[in-house]
């Protein structure tokens, strides 16, 4: 009797493990499937209601966290203010460049969205709980015109791109997700490279594959490159702000620069985002 019970347990365990591997093999990299669309269709409204109902409680918890954080940030801001004062002395010469710089970056919200794209506004309704994933679920989907690989922005800059879509929701792989790679350009020096994540730290991205003969510096801005060749083109339109270079150390032995970029968008605290649907890529 006991042996039979043990055998049955082992069989169930083996079945679950084999099932997990089979699901992983079948569904990895294939976007959404029928099961997910069905489950999502059933539970998305529940999630939306729960999201709305729990928002006051979330805000309360986040308020405590931000209050603690603000105490530490105050000292850092004092230091930044001192640096800003010093930089302001030489700012008169930079003023002339500033207009061109702003135009290039299209910092104002209306200008950040390229022509030909139809922005669809959505709200983040779920976020991956593990520390390894950097993706969120938003409450707009194929029913709103959202398609896989559509770029996603918020008021500050690039957030990521749609990686899977169901009728009423979509998964957005953030630019800090391990699967992300965005062709980017440093302005105004026009150095191109690829923005890749530093997995586990959404406040730090790495600008890779840049031309080793050109030097970039702290404080320069990074925007999407939006390249296009005869047959292929970038998923992201050009000139969407991505972030600011925070560190550009030179490794002499390797003759390359390790460039760290702080994203403009706060990827830990996303709420309202816009999916850029339609339009031509690049």
């Amino acid at each position, binding site marked *: 009797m006991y042996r039979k019970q043990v055998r049955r347990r082992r069989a169930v365990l083996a079945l679950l493990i084999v099932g997990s591997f089979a699901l992983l093999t079948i569904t990895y990299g294939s976007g959404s499937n029928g099961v997910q669309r069905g489950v999502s269709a059933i*539970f998305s409204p529940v999630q939306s209601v729960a999201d709305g109902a729990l928002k006051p409680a979330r805000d309360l918890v986040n308020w405590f966290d931000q209050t603690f954080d603000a105490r530490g940030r105050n000292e850092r801001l004092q230091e930044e203010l001192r640096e800003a004062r010093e930089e302001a002395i030489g700012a008169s010469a930079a003023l002339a460049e500033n207009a061109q710089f702003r135009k290039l970056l299209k910092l104002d919200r209306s200008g950040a969205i390229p022509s030909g794209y139809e922005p669809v506004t959505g709200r983040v*309704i779920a976020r991956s709980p593990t520390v390894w994933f950097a993706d969120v679920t938003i409450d707009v989907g194929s029913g709103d015109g959202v398609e896989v690989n559509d770029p996603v922005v918020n008021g500050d800059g690039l957030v990521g791109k749609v990686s899977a879509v169901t009728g009423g929701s979509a998964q957005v792989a953030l630019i800090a997700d391990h699967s992300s790679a965005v062709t980017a350009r440093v302005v105004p020096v026009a150095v191109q490279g690829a923005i890749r994540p530093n997995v586990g730290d959404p406040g730090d991205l790495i600008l890779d594959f840049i031309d080793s003969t050109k030097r970039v510096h702290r404080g320069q801005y990074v925007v999407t490159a939006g390249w296009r060749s005869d047959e292929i083109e970038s998923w992201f339109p050009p000139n969407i702000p991505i972030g600011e270079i925070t560190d550009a150390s030179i490794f002499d032995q390797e003759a390359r620069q390790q460039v760290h970029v702080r994203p403009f968008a706060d990827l830990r605290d996303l709420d309202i985002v816009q999916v850029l649907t339609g339009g031509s890529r690049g």
Partner: protein
Amino acid sequence: MILTPKIFARLAAIVLLGVILQLSFFSQVALFHVSPDFLPSLVVALGLLGGTMTGAVSGFSVGFLLNCLLVQPLGGGSLVLLSAGYLAGLFRERVDVRSPLAAPLLCAILTVLAELGFGAVELTLATDTTVSGLILRDVLMQGVFAFFGGWVIYLGLRRALRPALVDEHPVRASRPPTVLGA
């Protein structure tokens, strides 16, 4: 654990409520810059209360539902969480520890292992990528959250599933012995 249709319905409701609450609340709040992940603790608590099969099946179900709702590749979450649930059940069946700290400690340890497991699954399937050292801090913080959260979850689940638990005896009011002839 004695599985009746009523208890099965309770387990399903617990799994569903746990996943919805995690995605809609806990994943969207930050404590010390880390969003707590209580799903491994939920699975570990179920494994501790119900044994290996309950732990493994509930872990698989939680992972499956999580991956479905997040539109992620299926299977990864199930694999990691069923392992956590199975190990918790194995602990219950093989180790005779009565300390009240056993449950929260196991929640913390298995949460850390589960987070590392999620990373292992992801990095095995992903292309070459850089990993920040900060992720270790985040993983350890998840362990701390799980210690405290796991305690509450374990006690709550023990109360919710009391009728099905084999080693939970109803407490009877003690009565003084009747002395004959007094």
